[in-house]
C-alpha cells in the first residue's frame, strides 16, 4: 500500500495531495454487510471442523442419529482412548512425522544444491539441460507411474515409510527447483565473488552465503513439501506393504469397514489426525500464508 502511494506521484498522473487527504478518511469506512457476508461464507470452512469436534465427544448411540451439528449429550470423551488404540496413534503419528520430516529434509537438500549449481553454471549445457530434465516431473502425475513404482519399491525393499518419503521428495523436486532457481537468479553474483577473493571454497560459499539468503524460499519449499507429504493418502496407501507401518491419513480407513457404526470413535480419530496441522497453522498463519503465496504465485 505505502509503496504504491509513494510510487504513483512520480508518474505524474494522479495529483498526490488530493489523494493523501482522502486516504485516511476511506480507511475508516468499513463495509459491515460485506464483513458479515464473508463471515457467513467462512462457516462453510468451519462447519466440518465443528462437526468433527461435536461428533468426537458424542456417545455411539447419539452419533448414529444423523444430526452432526447437535451438541454432545451426554458429553463422552472416552472415544479418544478407543481411537488412540485402534489407530495405534503414537505409532502412526510418529511415522507420519518421520515421513514428512524426511521429505522436507530431502527436498530442501537436493533441490537447493541442484538449483545453485544450475543457476551458477547456466551457461554450461549440462546444467541447463538438467534443469529441463528435472522439471519434466511436473508433467508426471503419480498415478501414471504408480504401478511400476509399487513393483520397484517392493523389489528394492523400499515398500515402507522410507520409500514413501523418497518418492514424496521426488514429486516435490521439480516445483522446488523451479522456486529455488527463480530466487537464486535474483541474488547478485558479486556477493559470492567477494567471498571467493577472501579464499572461500564453493562449498563454503553455498553454506555461509547462499543458504542464509535463501531463507524465505526455504520456508516456502519446506511448507509445500511438508503439507504434500503429511496429508497424502494415495502414495503411502499404494507403497507401504506392512499395514502396521502406515501413516496417519491411511490408518483412518479402518473406520470405513470395521466398527461401522462407531462414528464417535471415527471422528475422534479424524480430529486427532487433523488437529496437529490446524493448531500449528493457527499459530504460524501469517508466516504460512506468505510462504504459500510466494510459492503459488511463482509457479
Amino acid at each position, binding site marked *: *500500500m505505502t509503496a504504491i502511494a509513494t510510487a504513483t506521484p512520480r508518474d505524474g*498522473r*494522479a495529483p498526490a495531495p488530493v489523494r493523501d487527504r482522502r486516504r485516511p478518511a*476511506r480507511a475508516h469506512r*468499513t463495509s459491515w454487510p*460485506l*464483513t458479515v457476508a*464473508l*463471515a457467513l*461464507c467462512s462457516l462453510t*470452512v468451519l462447519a*466440518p*471442523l465443528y*462437526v468433527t469436534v461435536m*461428533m468426537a465427544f458424542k456417545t455411539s448411540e447419539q452419533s448414529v442419529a444423523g*444430526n452432526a451439528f447437535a451438541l454432545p449429550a451426554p458429553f463422552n470423551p472416552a472415544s479418544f482412548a478407543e481411537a488412540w488404540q485402534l489407530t495405534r496413534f503414537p505409532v502412526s503419528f510418529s511415522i507420519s512425522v518421520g515421513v514428512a520430516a524426511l521429505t522436507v529434509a530431502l527436498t530442501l537438500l*537436493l*533441490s537447493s*544444491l541442484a538449483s545453485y549449481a544450475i543457476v551458477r553454471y547456466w551457461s554450461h549445457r549440462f*546444467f*541447463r539441460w*538438467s*534443469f*529441463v*530434465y528435472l522439471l*519434466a516431473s*511436473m*508433467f508426471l*502425475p503419480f*498415478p*501414471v*507411474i*504408480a*504401478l511400476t513404482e*509399487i513393483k520397484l519399491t517392493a523389489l528394492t525393499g523400499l515398500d515402507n515409510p522410507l520409500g514413501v518419503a523418497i*518418492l514424496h521428495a*521426488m514429486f516435490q523436486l521439480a516445483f522446488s*527447483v523451479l522456486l529455488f532457481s527463480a530466487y537464486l*537468479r535474483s541474488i547478485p*553474483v558479486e556477493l559470492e565473488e567477494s567471498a571467493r577473493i577472501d579464499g572461500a571454497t564453493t562449498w563454503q560459499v553455498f553454506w555461509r552465503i547462499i543458504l542464509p539468503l535463501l531463507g524465505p524460499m526455504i520456508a516456502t519449499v519446506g511448507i509445500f513439501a511438508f*503439507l504434500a507429504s*503429511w*496429508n497424502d*493418502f*494415495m502414495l503411502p496407501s*499404494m507403497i507401504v506393504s506392512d499395514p502396521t507401518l502406515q501413516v*496417519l491419513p491411511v490408518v483412518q480407513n479402518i*473406520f470405513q469397514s470395521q466398527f461401522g457404526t462407531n462414528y464417535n470413535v*471415527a471422528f475422534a480419530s479424524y480430529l486427532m489426525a487433523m488437529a496437529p*496441522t*490446524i493448531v500449528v*497453522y*493457527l499459530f504460524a498463519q*501469517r508466516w*504460512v*500464508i506468505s510462504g*504459500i*503465496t510466494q510459492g*503459488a504465485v511463482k*509457479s
Partner: protein
Amino acid sequence: MTQTLTPSTRAAAPTTAPGRRRRHGRPEPIAYLFLVPALVVFTAFVVIPALVGIFYSFTDYVGFGGWSFLGLRNYTALLGDPGIREAYGFTLGFSVVTVIVAQVIALVLAIGLSKRIRFAAGLRAIFVIPMVVSGIVVAYVFNYLFSNTLPAFATAAGIDPLSQSILGNPDLAWLAIVVVSAWQTIPGALLVYTAGLTSIPGDLYEASSLDGAGPWRQFRSITLPLIAGFVLINTILGIKGYLGVYDVIVGLTGGGPGNATSSVAMTIFGGFTGGDYAYQMANATVFFVITVVISVLQLVVSRGRNIRL
C-alpha cells in the same frame, strides 16, 4: 519425454537467465557434486519407472512372469472400452465443473477480502485452513454429512429427493465429490487471486468511480482484465490437479455407486489387482500424454504472463 519438453523450456531460458552469469567458464568438479545426486535419485525413482511403464504398455505383461509384444493393441482396446471411456468422461467432466465452481468462489472471496472489511486477516486465515488438512480425512467427515446428516435434515424438512444419501445415487454422487474437491482447493486459488488483486493500483478504481463506474463495471473493465493471467494459470493448475482426483473419491464413494464416480486414477490402480497390468499402463500413458498437453499449455501461458508483467 525430455524431447517433448525441450522446445518450450529452451525458448524460455534466455529470458530468465541474466547475462552476467555467462562469464563463468568451466564448472568446478564440486558443481557436479551438487547436481548429480538429485539427477541420479530422480532418474532411478521417476524416469526409469515411467519408461518401464510405457514399455510394458506395448506388451501383455500381467505384473509378473513372462510377456510378449502386443504393439498398439492395448491402446486400440482402450478406445473401445466403455469402462475406460466412462472414467475419462467422468474425470474430465468433474474437472471442468470443479474448476469453474472453485475459481468463481475463490475469486469472489478474494475480491471480498480485498475490500474494506473488518477482521480481513482473521477471515483469510479461516479460509486457508482446508489447505492444511488431509483430503482423505475431510472426505470421511463429509461422507458422514452427506450420508447421514443431509438425509436426516431433508426428511425433517420434507424434501423427498434428498432423503436418501446422495452418495448412493449414481446421478448425484459426483456433486458431493465436486463440493469436497472445491472445498479443499479454493484456498490455493484464493491466495493466488489475493496476490493478483494487490498488484492492481488503487488509483484505477478511484479514477473509474469518479467517471461514474459502478462495482460491476469496475470488475468487468478493471479487475478481470488485470487478473486474467492469474485466472488462466489457476484454471490450468486446477484442471491438472482435478484430473488426478483420487483421495476425495476414496473417502466419499470409493468410485461407486457401480462405477459412476470412478476416476482415471482409480482405473489405473485397478491394474495392480485386476490382472490387466499392461492394459492399465497403456491407460496411464494416455493419461500422461493428456497431462503433458495441459502442462505445456501452462508453461506457454506462464511465460506469456511473465513477459507482460
